[in-house]
């Protein structure tokens, strides 16, 4: 194991709040919402009609011919990854391609391609199905497209753990660097599955908000009146390196990735453990991995999707693993839920909170839930709050009982 710390030298994102990191962060701090109501004809029969669409279409950011061979989940992954790569300067640092790796997770993969090509199959027969169908729908497709884009030959990996996928990718990246299997790892998550079928599936689970007449107020984590999540799309990416080599090449360091851990609930396929037992174990293990105590943690960017059961389970986990002193933000209140990209995007937010020493507010938190754990937590609302932070946690959970916790510290 390498003894050097792992640092974050590049950030990238394309989200419902903005087409890059700075516009996304500015919109987040300004309290803007990325949520709108779908107006297409097909939505009329749907109980849940809200969505958080990308602020900038990837077709404005990627060459047309290249884009037509990429599923939308690949397009946004490439946009975010290329921004992170440029931001890191690693592409100009002469890193051996054999020592560059990629880990990009997705919850669902190329669902739009699968569904669109099924329409082609039904309408025109098998000979008209695109030869790009398989590379566009496979869940490792975004990681592979990013690997080609930055010239990574040290390994390209694609964790799939539903809404924990993006966070799991970051954890894998940390391991690759600690085990000296690469010198630079581009990690992240991506999702783009706004389509009638996934919308119907999530709606059938009663997991989505039906506050159709008030899009911007629909995603309201920890609020008493929350009624489900809002499906979002986008991607986020980080460049990770060992600190010694990053410093040697003069890279700007946004933050350290001090620790990570993952657990499984072992409780139910989709329902979270009501006391957040597995989530708390993940946070505790990640802090131990980072060599920190709960008192060191000043900020948590919570998973908090705005579902009735998920948010209270997480509140219990945060309280038991960290305590009541920590400043909590639930940024899905503005971005919606980016599924496999959520953990990566919220890690970008946690890093920026550390770097800028400001904690984003949780929108729409008007009446905190009566749950004792929610009541006890200091969930930032109203305006972003200035704070003196040295360590921040991002936790992410996925259907299947996956729990990932990541610990970032100031550079």
């Amino acid at each position: 194991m390498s003894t050097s710390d792992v640092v974050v030298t590049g950030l990238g994102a394309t989200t419902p709040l903005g087409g890059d990191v700075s516009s996304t962060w500015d919109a987040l701090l300004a309290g803007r919402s990325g949520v709108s109501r779908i107006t297409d004809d097909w939505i009329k029969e749907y109980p849940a009609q809200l969505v958080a669409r990308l602020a900038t279409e990837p077709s404005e950011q990627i060459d047309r011919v290249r884009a037509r061979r990429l599923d939308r989940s690949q397009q946004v992954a490439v946009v975010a990854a290329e921004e992170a790569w440029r931001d890191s300067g690693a592409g100009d640092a002469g890193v051996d391609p054999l020592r560059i790796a990629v880990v990009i997770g997705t919850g669902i993969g190329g669902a739009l391609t699968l569904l669109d090509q099924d329409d082609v199959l039904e309408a025109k027969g098998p000979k008209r199905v695109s030869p790009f169908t398989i590379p566009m729908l496979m869940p490792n497709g975004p990681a592979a497209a990013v690997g080609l884009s930055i010239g990574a030959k040290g390994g390209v990996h694609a964790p799939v753990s539903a809404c924990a996928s993006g966070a799991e990718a970051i954890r894998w990246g940390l391991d690759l660097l600690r085990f000296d299997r690469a010198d630079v790892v581009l990690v992240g998550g991506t999702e783009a599955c706004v389509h009638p079928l996934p919308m119907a599936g999530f709606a059938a689970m009663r997991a989505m908000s039906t506050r159709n007449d008030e899009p911007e107020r629909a995603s309201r984590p920890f609020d008493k009146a929350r009624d489900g999540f809002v499906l979002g799309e986008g991607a986020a990416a980080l460049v990770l390196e060992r600190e010694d080599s990053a410093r040697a090449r003069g890279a700007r360091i946004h933050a350290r990735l001090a620790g990570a851990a993952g657990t499984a609930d072992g409780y139910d396929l989709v329902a979270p453990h009501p006391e957040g037992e597995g989530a708390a174990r993940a946070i505790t293990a990640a802090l131990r991995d980072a060599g920190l105590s709960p008192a060191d943690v000043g900020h948590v960017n919570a998973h908090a999707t705005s579902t009735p059961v998920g948010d209270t389970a997480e509140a219990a986990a945060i309280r038991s693993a960290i305590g009541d002193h920590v400043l909590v933000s639930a940024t899905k209140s503005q971005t919606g839920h980016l599924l496999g990209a959520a953990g990566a995007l919220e890690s970008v937010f946690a890093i920026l909170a550390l770097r800028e020493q400001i904690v984003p507010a949780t929108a729409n938190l008007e009446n905190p839930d009566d749950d004792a754990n929610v009541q006890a937590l200091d969930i930032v609302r109203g305006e972003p709050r200035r704070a003196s932070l040295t360590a921040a946690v991002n936790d992410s959970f996925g259907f299947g009982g996956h729990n990932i916790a990541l610990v970032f510290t100031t550079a």
Partner: protein
Amino acid sequence: MSSTQEIQSGLAEILEEVAGVTPADATPEKSFTEDLDVDSLSMVEIATAVEDKFGVAIPDDELGNIKTVGDAISFIEKNQG
């Protein structure tokens, strides 16, 4: 029946749409893979588009023999309606 000129320009449109080839570059002597950087999956897409546009059928064993833009033009001329 399309003229040779019509076939060449129709083929150039397809190449531009599918593979981003500049129409002026789609001249008969050009090899799809060597000169125009068209990969094997894109060749399948181009073949499908040619079938739809010109009403010809391109069997898989014939597709392998179509190496240049000129080969494609001759195939279409010989086989169209």
